[in-house]
Every structure is written in C-alpha cells, then in structure tokens.
C-alpha cells in the first residue's frame, strides 16, 4: 500500500486544501494515503497560510490536531501545531505562546527561527524543520511545531506530555527482594530507569525508528568497552533489515532478528526489569528498548541466560545455589516427567519398586485408556485450564483454574477415567514449569513435552533418550548473535559454571562470561571475599 516515489500531481491536491469532489468533501477514508516522498518534496513556504492549508489537507479533521494561530509581538503571524493529547499544555502556554506574544521585536527585525529559539522561546528545542514531512513527523512524535510567516524553516519543540502509567512492579517477573519498578510503555521513562542504574557516559543509546507506518522509536543500548563492537554491528545490521509497516511489540523485532526462526527455543532475552537489563549490559550484552511496550530485548540470549533469574543475585548465595539446583530439577521434570512416567509404566515395569508398582497397578486397574493417551489427555486438559486462567478476567481466572483443576481432576479420578497418580504427575509437571524463570523457555518446554510423550509411548526410555539427544543436538547447533547457544554449559569451563548450575558467592564470580566479554573480563577486584577484622582469613597489605 505504501509506494516509493510520489505520484505526480499530488502537490496540486495539497495546494487545494481538503480533498473534495463534486457535491462536498470526500470521505476521509477515500483520501489518498500520504507518502513520505511526497511530503519531503513539499518545503515550508514563506506563506504561512499556504503551509497551514497543506497541513490541514494532511491532517484533515483529526479532532486532536490543533493549530494555534497568533502574532508574535502582535505583528508577525505565526502558528503552533501540535496534537492535543501528546503535549503538555502548561509548558506550551508558559514557555512558547506567552513569551512569543509578549515579545516586542525591534521594528523591521527578521524573526528567524534561529533567533526565536535563542532569545525568545524558553523551551528545549528539538530541531529545525524545513519540509512538511519533518513537520508531520515531529507533530506525531509529540512536539510542537512553530511556523512563522515569511520563514522557510519551522521549529520543532519538545513538549511531550501524554498520559502514561508510572513504573510498577513487573507482573511477569515478580521478586521477593529486589527493585520494584519495571519498564513502562514510555521509552523516555524506560531509558531513564536504565540510566539511573548505569551512570556512565559509556552507556550508549542509539536511536532508530522502525515501522513504515507506525514510526516507532527504538533504542539500541550497550556499554562501550564491554559489548563487542562486532556484536553491536550485527544487532544494528539486523535491525536495519526490518522493513515492516508497524512494530507494535518487541516480539515483532524479536521474530525478525532471531538466528533460528523456527526453533522453539528463545534466542532473545525478554524482560521488563531495568535491573536485569543493566546486569546483562554489564555482561557485555546489547539491549533493545522500544516505545509502547515495557518489554525490552537483550541479545545474545544463550540457553543459560534463560535459567537465571535476577533474584538469584538478590538473595544469599546459599539460597542462590539451592534455587538454581531446584530450578534445573524442575526444568527436567517439566520436560520429562510425563514421558518418563509413560515409558516406565509401559516399558520398564522392573524399575518401579514392588510395592509402589502394586499401587500403580491397583490404581490403573479399570482405567480404560492406555497410559500414554491418559497422559496426553490430562496434559492437554491442563494446558486448556492454564490458558483459560490467563485469558479470563483476573478475578474469574483464578477461580476457573482452581475449580477446573479440582473438579475435573477429582471427578475424572472418581469416575475411573484417569488414575490418581496421573493427576499427580500432570500437576507436578505443570507446577514445575513455573519454576523456569523465562516464560519463553517454559513455552518451548511445554510444547516439546508432547512429542516426548509420543516417543516414550513408542520406544520407552530409549525413545525418551532419543528425544533428549535430538533436543541436545538441536541446541548445540543453535547460535544467538554469534554466541553458541550452549555456551557456559559446554565446552566445560569451570570458570563459567560458577553461575550456571549454581550461583556462587559474588566474590567468586570475578569474570564475565567468556563468550560475551571477550577482552574485558575482569568484573571486580581480586580477593573481595570479606574477612571479619582480626579473623583467621585476614591477609596482610592487599
């Protein structure tokens, strides 16, 4: 729908003001779409009225498009253009309209925008604009554009002031201990949150606009000297490739910059926690922030990163170690438990201790479904309940999940359709999947559980190990922005494992991950282990 290169004769339409046809105004939906190239070819004319007519033709009857005409010092005609909901009104009145109207210029002096910006207007100036495209762009971005009669340039003034929520605790990444603020939909606020955590000029923010139609602000951010320049270059290269009409959520970007688009495994870290982004930047990663969504992207995202939660570092290391181990265990459970249950009960009955086996058999007697079908049915039922719980209004959702799980589970067992053990297995699997800190990784595991169950049903534990190996080979072949997906796990570097299977004390994790910060790996001064004064471990001069 958007074509490159303007159409001839378009200018005439803008000249004529609002598009008309015989018998009145044309329906707005039938107006031709305005194109960048067309607008860029329309410079700001010295004739203010002509400019305003053209802009009216562009914005038409949009109720929030405001044109405020006034005279500078009562003499020179000027107009301020802005979108009602996007600018801060007091700022506009106090710092732009008032000074301009009250200004008494020397008779005969030319009121160039440069002059006005320097001496009259007390508002931060964004930049000078010279064509209608720039005017539109800034107006849509929440600026006030000042046009002065007789000048070929206008001024774009930053006065953004739209409704936004204040930073709240992120819903998806709640912590017991840790900062309680998350990114919000406003890019400026999000960037501030990040700036506050990394107060260094080396925090680089590079701006980018994505989306032909939507024109969404995107910021690439990294720490100079830590992030590998090749990595930054690669990120920019991939973002530059994106040419779509709209980028409404960061997943639009994520899907377009992934290394392996069809792999179920996440390759980009998604987070709404500024502290987490800051921690990743300190590792030498690159973050991509975007307006209109609180979710920031961080690359590269290797497997281990999805098993780390920011909270791991906010609690005592012993808890960190324990939680990590628990998490890996829960990860294995959520991927494997149903399939192992199916494999063991239908292929390897010798593995079950005799009395437990008799229990299982007693419970299974009379259950009409084969174990694998039973497992599949229950897993699907669980997924339905879970999905329903997410989609339904919050208050109802909880009730539905609990009632659904309880009632369906209990009724199914009483009716003898499923065995009680299967209900335990499915519930445990479902709960365990919530221990995976990354929602994206949890999704991958949830989906992979089903083929695993089928493999288990056809080849037993051999099938299960086949599935595990296939996943492993798949993972070993993945890369995220040049970093091998299994970096940190294999090849084996004891240095890196300190923060993988467990979370060792801070003072032991002296180096940054080897695949990320290639050069600058020292994270902290050596020998930071605290020693009580006069204690046994006290060292001399160092």
């Amino acid at each position: 729908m958007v074509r490159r290169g303007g159409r001839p004769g378009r200018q005439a339409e803008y000249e004529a003001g609002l598009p008309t046809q015989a018998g009145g105004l044309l329906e707005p939906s039938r107006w031709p779409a305005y194109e960048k190239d067309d607008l860029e070819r329309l410079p700001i004319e010295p004739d203010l009225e002509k400019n305003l007519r053209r802009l009216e033709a562009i914005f038409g009857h949009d109720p929030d498009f405001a044109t405020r005409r006034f005279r500078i010092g009562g003499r020179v005609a000027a107009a301020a253009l802005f979108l009602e909901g996007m600018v801060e009104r007091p700022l506009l009145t106090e710092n732009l309209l008032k000074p301009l109207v009250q200004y008494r210029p020397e008779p005969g002096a030319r009121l160039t925008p440069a002059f006005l910006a320097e001496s009259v207007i007390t508002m931060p100036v964004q930049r000078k604009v010279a064509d209608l495209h720039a005017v539109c762009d800034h107006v849509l971005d929440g600026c006030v554009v000042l046009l002065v009669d007789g000048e070929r340039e206008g001024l774009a003034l930053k006065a953004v002031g739209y409704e936004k929520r204040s930073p709240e605790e992120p819903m998806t990444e709640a912590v017991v201990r840790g900062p309680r603020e998350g990114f919000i939909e406003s890019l400026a606020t999000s960037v501030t949150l990040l700036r506050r955590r990394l107060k260094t000029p080396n925090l680089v923010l590079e701006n980018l606009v994505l989306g032909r139609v939507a024109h969404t602000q995107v910021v690439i951010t990294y720490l100079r000297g830590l992030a590998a320049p090749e990595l930054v270059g690669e990120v920019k290269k991939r973002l530059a490739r994106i040419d779509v009409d709209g980028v409404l959520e960061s997943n639009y970007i994520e899907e377009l910059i992934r290394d392996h688009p069809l792999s179920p495994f996440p390759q980009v870290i998604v987070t709404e926690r500024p502290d987490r982004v800051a921690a990743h930047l300190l590792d030498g990663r690159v973050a991509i922030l975007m307006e209109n969504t609180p979710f920031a992207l961080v690359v590269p995202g290797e497997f281990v990163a999805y098993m780390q939660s920011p909270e791991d570092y906010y609690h005592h290391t012993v808890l960190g170690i324990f939680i990590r181990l628990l998490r890996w265990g829960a990860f294995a459970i959520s991927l494997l438990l149903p399939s192992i249950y199916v494999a063991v009960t239908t292929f390897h009955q010798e593995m079950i201790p005799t009395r437990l086996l008799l229990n299982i058999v007693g419970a299974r007697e009379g259950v009409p479904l084969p174990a694998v079908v039973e497992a599949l049915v229950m897993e699907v039922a669980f997924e339905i309940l879970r999905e329903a719980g997410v989609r339904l209004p919050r208050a109802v959702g909880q009730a539905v999940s609990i009632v659904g799980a309880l009632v369906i589970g209990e009724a199914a067992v009483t009716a003898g359709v499923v065995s009680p053990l299967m209900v335990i297995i499915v519930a445990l699997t479902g709960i365990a999947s919530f221990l995976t800190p990354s929602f994206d990784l949890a999704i991958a595991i949830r989906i992979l559980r089903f083929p695993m169950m089928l493999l288990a049903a056809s080849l037993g534990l051999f099938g299960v190990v086949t599935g595990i190996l296939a996943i492993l080979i798949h993972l070993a072949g993945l890369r995220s922005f040049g970093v091998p997906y299994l970096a940190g796990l294999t090849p084996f570097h004891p240095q890196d494992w300190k923060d993988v299977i467990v979370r060792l004390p801070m003072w032991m994790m002296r180096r940054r991950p080897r695949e990320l910060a290639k050069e600058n790996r020292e994270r902290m001064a050596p020998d930071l282990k605290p020693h009580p004064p006069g204690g046994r471990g006290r060292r001399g001069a160092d």
Partner: protein
Amino acid sequence: MNGRIKVKTLLPAVLLLALLVAGCWDLREVEDLGYVLATAIDRAPGNRVKVIVQLPNPRVVGGGGPRGAVTPSASVASKPYRNYAGTGATMFDAIRAISQESARRLFFAQNRTVIISERMAREGLREVLDFLSRSVEIRRHLTMVFVVRGDPAQILDVPNPHSPMPALRIDDIVKWRGQTSRFAPVPLSRFLEFLSLEGAEPYAGVIEAVPNPTYRAGQGERDAPEPPRSIRLRGAALFRGDRLVGFLNEAETRGLLWALSEVRGAQVVFPLPGGRPGEQGTAEIQRARGKIEPEVIRGRIVMTIKVFTEGNLAEVEGTLDLSRPEVMEQLDRALAAAIRGEVLAAVEKTQEAGADVFGFGEAFHRKFPREWKRIKKNWPELFRDLEVRVEVKATIRRTGMIGKPRPILVP
C-alpha cells in the same frame, strides 16, 4: 534453502508419526502384566518340570482406585494373591503353559524368591539354573534361592495379615535375617558363582511351612481365626554341584555363616562361667567377621577359620558381678566357645555331606595356586578329612541398661 528447512522440520514429524503407527512393539500396559513375586519349581511326573508362580491381586494389595468394594470375606476376589501352576518339558515350557490360564502376561523382573522343591534339588538343577541365568527379566542378584521342605504349593499359600503375600513376606523375613542368622538366604548370583568355582560348593536357604502354635481349631465364631500355618526360614541346604546332598540345622547354619562373614547379627546363648549348671547368658551380636586361612603344615593342609565378633549382653541369669573386668573376660571366652562350637558342628556336617560350602578349596587355591593344580582332582576326598581349626575372638562391649544382675531374693 527453503527446501532444506521443510525437509528438516517435516522429517522428524513424519518419522515420529511412523513410529507411533507402526511402533509400540514392546509396549505393555502396566496393568496387563502379571508380576511374578515368587516362583516355586517342582518335579512333575515323567521328568517334567512344574512351576508355580505367585501373582499379586493389585486391587487388594495395591492402593488407589475406588475403595470399599472389597469386603473382607473369604471370596476369591478379595484374596491378595493367586498362584498359578504349569507343567512342561522344560522350565520355560512350563512357564508358558501357565499363560493358557492367566489373564496377565507373566513378568519376572520383580521376582525376588525362587523356591525349589527338595525332590527337584536332589535330582539336579542344571536346566533350572540355566534358565534363571539366561533370562533377561530375572535379576540374579536380587533373587534369593531357597529349598523347600515339603510341598512348595503350600508355602505359597499361607495367609497372614502382615505382608499378606507370602512372596513379599519371605522377602521381609530375609530383610531381618540379622536377628538370628539361623537361616542362609543366598542370592542366585552367589549360588551360581559358587557353582562354577572348583573349590567351593553352593548352599541355599531352607524354607518350611510350619504349624502356627497360636492357631486353635474351632476358634473363629466372632473373630477371624489365626492362620493355621506360618512360613519359617530355617537352616541351609548343602549342594554338591547342582545336587542337594544334605541340610544344616539352625545352629550349624550359623556356624557356616560365621566363617563366610555373613552373620549380620545374632543371639548367642552360652553357659555362664562359674555359675551354677543351667545358668545361661545371651549375647546380642552386632558385628562379625570371618575368614578362612589355609596353611600347609608338615605336608598337611590345615584350614583355620577365624571369627572376630562383638556384641552386647542381652540377658544374664544368675548373679555375676559384671562390673569386674575379669568377669567380662570370662564372658568373652564363654561366648567365643559357643560360637566355636557352632562353626565346628557346621564343618563336621559339611564334611560328612562332602559339600565344601565353606569354599576351603577356593581359599587354598588363592593362596597356593601351584599346589592347587596338583591336588584339585583329589579335593573331594581331601576335603572330607581336612583338618579345620577354629579361632574365635569375641568381645562383649556393653551390658545393656543395667550392670550387675538384680539378685532375686527367694523367700
């Protein structure tokens, strides 16, 4: 590139489906199997083999499922187990014959007990043992071998509320063997290993169904009666090669186990030194270690069985002053003598039977490999006249919660 992606993604899916459609060759639902928990083997007429297997009734012994339907009546449905018997020309033949009656496919991997009838054992176990060691399902080291005195079918049908299944009950009794060490359960793997060694012979545990003294005929109007019989493990069966040649009684069995270092605990009764006749003490053995040391003394082979043991005093009759160290030493010596007596009795009995279950020959082989090559042909004869010395060192460590026994004042 596009084509490759399609192949890459489709191929696993297609293969997975193909596997499912064609697959599941070895899939057996858990409730479709009959878990054999005990196997009894007997000789049937015409040189055939009779196999009795015990299958659990999971509705009764297993939990779960809708409860309450089973009433504790003596109906077949509420019996916790069911024994099937089959006969055939070989062991495997007999087992498969059972499947003509059984609704469940027999599954042996959970089997922990093999019971062999005395008659079968006396005729030789070659074919039975080959099947047992060749089968994938049978776990040789988890399966205990027993010889039954009496009818094997009877052993597998002894009701009891504790461990209602006789098979599991045997297993549980074996678990507590350290209470007396008066029976000698032996894993199939060990039995087979001793069978293949030149200088050692295998032994097996002995199992019996004995009348239950607490059973009273005619009882049972109000309450369920006590079961009329109990399963009892006692003694050991001696083999020469694959043939049963004799039995050890309970004391002799323990004598054997002392030497083989298989005593995990025991109660040993010994006469009290310096006491009146008939006054006895009882020691609770907690640790025991035994070893066999062969020597050649003046051209004669002499075996020395050394036993080291320690335990507590569980019971003392009479009025010994246990606070005096020299009294404790006397007790140690008396305990050692009692143990020595058990070992010597066992040696004598095995020499009579000609079954070297102690593994004297193997011990000699290990220490004197060259000489062994010369004498191994004559070993059976040498074994019968072997000189065996027994040295026991027993230590009583503790005396329980009291020291001196309480003097009983007879009015």
